[in-house]
């Protein structure tokens, strides 16, 4: 999922300072899973804002609404009339959702309440780890299912570097050296030959941004 974290409260409060009617808009997909922007987080943020404004002597109207996801127009269109009742929408979606809401509900001001971090997985309760950098040229078939672009701090295709020590990365002694992990995984699978060749330099073409994927067969005539 896309993993995000809520911005510091002070930063959020500052961004909505000038408004009288704020709609806190949650997202029911990725950010719900990583407990950053779902229905419960919307309720918490709305309460915090009400309290903070009250302490400052202001009564501000704060609405709460969570939609299935903010990265698809079909879930944003139905909230047009509700949105019209507010001065600003404080979106708790990832950066993609914030932008689509801003585009669909233009010229309504839409502000982000989260910092989008990465594509990742749930490692344990309350712990999410990055796994994919959307390089557009997946080579997991060769590296035993461990991504060197993402999991190696230097993104080396021909690793390891000389900074690794006892399987840990020079960047953070708590972090595993991806190439040591790749080596051990392939060794256990009897597939070390996968990394014996020299991998060519990464093609950054697919990452030219903003990127687009089109599937003609699904496009309307």
């Amino acid at each position, binding site marked *: 999922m896309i993993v995000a974290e809520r911005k510091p409260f002070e930063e959020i409060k500052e961004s909505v300072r000038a408004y009288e009617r704020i709609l806190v808009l949650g997202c029911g997909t990725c950010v719900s899973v990583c407990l950053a922007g779902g229905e419960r987080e919307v309720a918490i943020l709305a309460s915090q804002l009400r309290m903070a404004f009250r302490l400052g002597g202001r009564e501000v109207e704060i609405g709460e609404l969570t939609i299935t996801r903010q990265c698809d127009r079909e879930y944003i269109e139905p909230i047009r009339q509700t949105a019209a009742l507010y001065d600003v929408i404080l979106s708790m979606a990832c950066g993609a959702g914030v932008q689509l809401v801003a585009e669909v509900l233009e010229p309504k001001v839409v502000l982000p309440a989260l910092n989008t971090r990465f594509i990742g997985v749930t490692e344990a309760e309350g712990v999410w780890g990055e796994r994919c950098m959307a390089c557009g040229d997946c080579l997991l078939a060769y590296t035993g299912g461990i991504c060197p672009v993402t999991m190696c701090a230097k993104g*080396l295709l021909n*690793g390891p570097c*000389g900074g690794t*020590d006892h399987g840990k990365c020079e*960047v953070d002694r708590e972090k595993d050296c991806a190439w040591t992990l790749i080596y051990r995984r392939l060794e256990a699978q009897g597939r070390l030959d996968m990394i*014996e060749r*020299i991998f*060519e*330099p990464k093609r950054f073409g697919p990452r030219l941004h903003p990127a687009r994927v089109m599937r003609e067969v699904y496009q309307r005539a």
Partner: protein
Amino acid sequence: MASRFKEALESGKFVVTAEVGPPKGTNIEKLLHHIDLLKDRVDALNVTDNQSAVMRICSLAVCKLIKDRGGEPILQVTCRDKNRLAIQSELLGAHVLGIHNVLCLTGDHIVVGDHIDAMPVFDIDSVHLIQAVRTLEQGKDMAGNELDGPVSFCVGATATPEADPLEPQLLKFKKKVRAGINFVQTQAVYDLDKFRRFMEFARKFDRVKVLAGIVLLASVGMARYMNANVPGIFVPEEMIQELASAPKGKAIEKGIEIAARLIRTIRDEGICDGVHIMAIGREERVLDILDAAGL
């Protein structure tokens, strides 16, 4: 295009190289002094490239200074700060300035340095960098375009003989050899048993000359600091104790003794083809090491 350093490597002599670290700023007085002290006592002088991800004068400029003063420079190029265009551009530049030795490195990560919010580039890795030099030598660039004039370099890489685990490093070493290197300057060597074992492997590639990295230990504090903070350096506890045993204020003399002892053993037993002496921030002491080692 001849390289004095390449000739030294091929001559069969015990090769000695050292390094100078460019200053953080434009005051090159001490730098020029170090260059003049060392240039005639060693076969070549490496110039580091924003070593430890600390921003300093670029390696290319300092290599030119060494060249102008009659020394033999080795341009160190890392993959951390430049993309493939900038790197190839720099190699062309080095060639036209008469610099024909290059050491190809991945580079320490941004976060260990002094600009922690800078973007780590790593567009290519050290293996690609070695290949890039060889490609430019064939008169083409990395994208296959024809060059108006090729380059010519003596190409080197690093190795970490005391890495644990060692096998992934050996895999990487083989790739560097296949990509086409003339020499290797290793990371710091302290444990000669581990180094001998590494050399058993490296000797299979006898066209590649190996220079053992010798890092001067100036104090117990420095040894512990490097163990904790400098990638690729592992000073064994026994050696730290040996440093600690020195009389107060004499730790660096002990460090020089240790370095000289390592060098003499390596040379007397013919363990490898030479040494690369690194005395970070204490370049004057390299002469003391050379004297003590009988070089």
